[in-house]
């Protein structure tokens, strides 16, 4: 029997909440009775470095996503989306937040990061399923730019492309809604969800690699 676990790779920059996003998805998966694993690469990450975390759903034991293995790449930052290209394959769905956080190695030399368009072009060389969603706008609308990760989670949930039932994600997300910050998070999740379902509604949009939500 050939098995293939579902593999989601979340990438971003230290401080964006990549780990907690993926842990939250993992908890939702557990709650839904699925076999899940969450892998994380950190260490110096909170000092502004690249961060990645993986969510694997399905039978198995390892927590790795190696080259060409990601089913979904969730990129909270476009440069990091570009860095994750080797992990994509022609079937990978890539969801990108368009706001570039330009590394200091570039800003200090007066260089800018890549445009979101150029990142999409690069990603599209591997997969046509590229979706750019302005989740940071949703997060700001919800009340805090720091809720970007939760808004992105909402987008994923709205897109309904995860093996984890949206209801499970929602119920975990609702668990966030107790404090003031939690209410902002919940709102960001809902707004992201709406962006995701709108994008899903025009399902072919994602296939054609068009830019949505901008």
């Amino acid at each position, binding site marked *: 029997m050939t098995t293939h676990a579902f593999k989601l790779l979340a990438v971003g920059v230290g401080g964006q909440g990549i780990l907690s996003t993926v842990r939250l998805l993992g908890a939702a998966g557990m709650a839904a009775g699925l076999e899940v694993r969450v892998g994380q690469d950190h260490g*110096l990450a909170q000092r502004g470095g690249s961060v990645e975390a993986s969510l694997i759903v399905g*039978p198995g*034991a390892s927590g*790795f996503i190696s080259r060409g293995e990601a089913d979904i790449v969730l990129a909270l930052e476009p440069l990091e989306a570009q860095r994750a290209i080797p992990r994509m394959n022609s079937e990978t769905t890539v969801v990108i937040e368009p706001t570039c956080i330009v590394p200091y190695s570039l800003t200090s030399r007066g260089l800018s990061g890549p445009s979101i368009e150029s990142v999409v072009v690069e990603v599209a060389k591997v997969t046509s399923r590229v979706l750019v969603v302005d989740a940071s706008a949703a997060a700001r609308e919800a009340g805090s730019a720091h809720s970007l990760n939760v808004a992105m989670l909402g987008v994923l949930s709205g897109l309904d492309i995860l093996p984890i039932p949206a209801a499970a994600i929602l119920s975990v997300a609702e*668990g966030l809604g107790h404090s003031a910050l939690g209410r902002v998070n919940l709102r960001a999740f809902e707004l992201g969800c709406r962006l995701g379902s709108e994008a899903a509604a025009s399902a072919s949009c994602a296939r054609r690699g068009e830019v949505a939500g901008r």
Partner: protein
Amino acid sequence: MGSRRDLLLDRPGRSALLLGNDAIVRGAIEAGVGFACGYPGTPSTEVTDGFAELAPALGIPFEYSVNEKIALEMAFAASLAGARSIVAMKHLGLMYAGDPLSTIPYIGVEGGLVIVSAGDPSCLTSPNEQDQRHLADMLHVPLLDPRTPQDALDVTRFAFELSERSRLPVLVRPTTRVCHTMAPVRFGPIGARRQTGFVRSPGRYIPMPANARRFRREIIERLATARELIEESALFSCSGSRSTAVLASGAPAATCADTLAELGAENEIALFQLSTIYPLPEEWLLSSLREVETLLVVEELSPYLEDRLRALLALHGLGTRVLGKRTGHLPEQGEYDPEVIRRAFHEALQVGEPPALTGDHQPPAERPPSLCPSCPHRSAFFAARTVFGDDALYFNDIGCYTLGTAPPLKAGDALLCMGAGFTLAAGVARMTGKQTLGFLGDSTFFHSGMPALLNVIKSDVDMVAVIMDNGITAMTGFQESPAAKIIDGRSEHLGNIEGTVRALGAKHVEAVDPNDLEAACRAFERARDRRGLSVIITQRVCPVFEVRSHLRTDGAKPAAKVGTFEVDHASCGHCGRSSHGLRCAQSSAEDFERQIVRMRSLESDREQARPAVAPCAEKCPLYLCVQGYAAHIASGRYAEALELIMDALALPDSVCRVCDKPCESVCERGTVDQPIAINDLKKFVLQWARECDEPAYRPELEPGNGKSVAIVGAGPAGLAAAYELRLRGYEVRVFDANEAPGGMLLTGIPAYRLPREALQRDVARILDHGVHFEGGRRLGGDLQLETLLEEHGAVLLAMGGGRGVELPLAGEGPRVLDALDYLSAQPDSSSAGQGSGERVVVIGGGNSAIDASRSALRRGAKKVVIVSLEDREHMPAIPEEILEAEREGVVIRAGWKATDLIEEGVRHVRVQPAESSRAVAGRLHPDAYEAIPGTQEILGAELLIVAIGQRLDDSVLGGLGIDLECEGGLVRVDTETHLTSHPRVFAAGDLTARDRTVTGAIAAGRRAAWGIDRTLRGNELADRRPPPPIPPPFVTRNENKRWRSHQEERRHPPELDPAARTGSFDEVVGTFDEEGARAEANRCLFCGQCGNCRSCLDLFGCPAFLLDGDRVEIDPDLCVGCDVCAQFCPNGALAAAPALSSIGSLP
């Protein structure tokens, strides 16, 4: 998601998504652990953090021990006291604990002792990826290697049992992949805690040699017990017996299982999974492997299992073919991701496809981690680098501050391990004699820096030890250290390092707030200037921890941000000279910036406004960037200093000797002590350039533009204009009545001030660019202006004034000579009427009078007296020159007026400014003085030299053949272009009513060249660079005290002994040596702005700074308003954004 506490103490049977490290904690809890400790280190940190959180609920003691050695000893002691104990650390820490680790197996444990030591293949967060498994058989310590989080729980729980029954400590060695993977973990029952207490048993725990030999034999039995337990355990499995098999351990075992499943090969290839490394379940292996023909061994790092399996199989005569690293199928380094394993399966076992290569992918820009905005470590490194520059060597250590090794701080010439920062600095200092600094943090200091420091103190090494105390072990996620106690998430910063360091015996110890840059720099300066060990403790609590813990030591709730700073673009990127269009072409350089930053951080009072243009530049006729070349000299960048000088100055060798130095009279340093020796610095750079093998300065020469200019007069104005025009591509012909070029520099300035070779260098430099010189040509004689105008596009008249002003003195007596005539006579013609053996009186108070008097001494005069109308303070001559004349023996009668000649000499009378003139500032007209009755005296003299100024000789203008508009007897010129009333005739120098100094004449020549270029080529094609602006008539120095500098005496270059001078015309003033020049340049306060400075980016490197085009900006999202950058910005261009209130300093 509930709290970790609720989760890890939850009921048996529950499945939860658990981090491998948390699973280890749960495993230990299930085993009834009674004591936990450790030292934080990624990837093991969550184990200790877990116990830190859970220990109170469990009711067991926990500690972050001072270091791993002590942690292991504590855990062993707990075991001796009969409790099950666990100690956690990363692989590097285990090496530090090697001493106790190697003896514990001899003594044996009582309560089970489990050592968790996380491995880090691929060096994800470590300086090496050592394979600790080799320690197991070396030290007789069973070692278990969990594959997954569930396995981590099971293995840990079992490890206590194994330890207790074998009486050996047990190593649990998860790798990063297991530590940091979350997977469903099923909880078992929580076992009861037992503690027998310490039972005194004489000799039992004392590994004296005789005992140790007996203990060694006991180890054999213990290992046998361990082996039995392992054979009976669930630490291995096999998915079936086939001819082809994979044997894997640790994290790769899980990946192998998944990969075989993905390939659908789980039935054709057997998978042996091992969670134990030592001892191996040899019986099981031998029986299970009997039918295996080909075995691929998959383990990360060294071929540990592979080699042991080979030996085991050979010993028992099994013919299994073993594949792995020794056969080249797997690498010996790095973590095994699924791709590595797929490739090995394909190549070794011919299953599956080779991993597909994805297309060429250009990786995007790297995103290395950096110190956070407002990090006090950055300030500390910045201060150290500002003071010690690039000459010192910097040794770093393990912690957040390791990030200080990266540009732009670059505070890391070497890095080894915890505590080695001090030792490396000490060792290199002792062997090289260089200045060294060692850096480490508070937790590291107590961990292993303390004995390192003691070692330095003991050997009295000349170095600086810096302890960066941020009150928390920040790198690993904010654990407490001996410098800080965390109670209920609130940290109490103990500030106990200073006392500790003093108690260790260090004599020079200072604690500073690194974010107070002045204080920090001063501390580093004192450390630099002192022999022996200096210890600097930079104290400021990690601001990120303060925010995270929501608590500050003073109880106030900290804000993540105290404000945002912004860049004032009116100041940033502009120097004061650039507001005149004089921006230099130099790019910024770090050592230069370090120099100007140091002055800004240390010397200036931030409350006081600063001049945009340094007054020295504003007062200089050439607008030379003095602070620029001073900072270059101070930082040893002489070529750049030379460039700044020579871009604006055609005759530097002359000017650096004869300039009247208006710059020094307004130098800001004069408000502190004395002005900088500006001209001597210039002279040093010229001397340096002369000693270079290659020409150190090459100006840009434009291609010929086909136009030509005639210049009449080869004095400073004419030569400067010739040079400028030649560089712009003009054909230039210079004519002079003298045979040799130089004008007044040659004939009016004596050689002891301006040696002829120095002048010759200037002249040669100009002529070598292709300027044609014709000597012996006098306008009105064989040279006609009309002809010149026919042959050239423009003519510049720069032939000087020519005649001294006569002094009508009644009576007859000594011979009377004009100073110019006297000075221009060849010095070797001293015999005939030059004053040899005579008494000489010089009338006048200016430079010519001084030159004439000092020349007279050199020509053998018996006595020389200067009679000056002006009193001593108001004499127009250069003050140093007056002083030197006196030192050589010239008598100065200032405030006297010669009245008439008599046979034995000259009569003179004391004068004072007339009543009506006393309030007038500046120089008075000779008529403004009145004689004081009854003060007349006689000066004996045979020669009288008159040096009371010059006037334009009528014959000069008469010889032109055209009428030029004049004013006050001098040619009137346009102030911008130096154009006369004739459309193609320009004039500069003493012919005009402009600045009459040598430097002024050069500036005038430059300006005239600019005017000529504009006129001949038109505004579009002409050189776009503006000429030097005309200095404002009065620069008033701000006498407000705004400098915090210590007094530091002006340095003087060497000079001839006054007694030895008068025998010759040898140059009196020498040149600074390099050390003197750098030290003197270092006195410059750099009071003006600099347009090239990017210190914030080039030296400080706070990630909040960015470059937008060529503008420096601050990202308001990243800036937290710590205010440190504003303390050093040389242009004062950084300030709190106005919307925000003022920034208070943090405690």
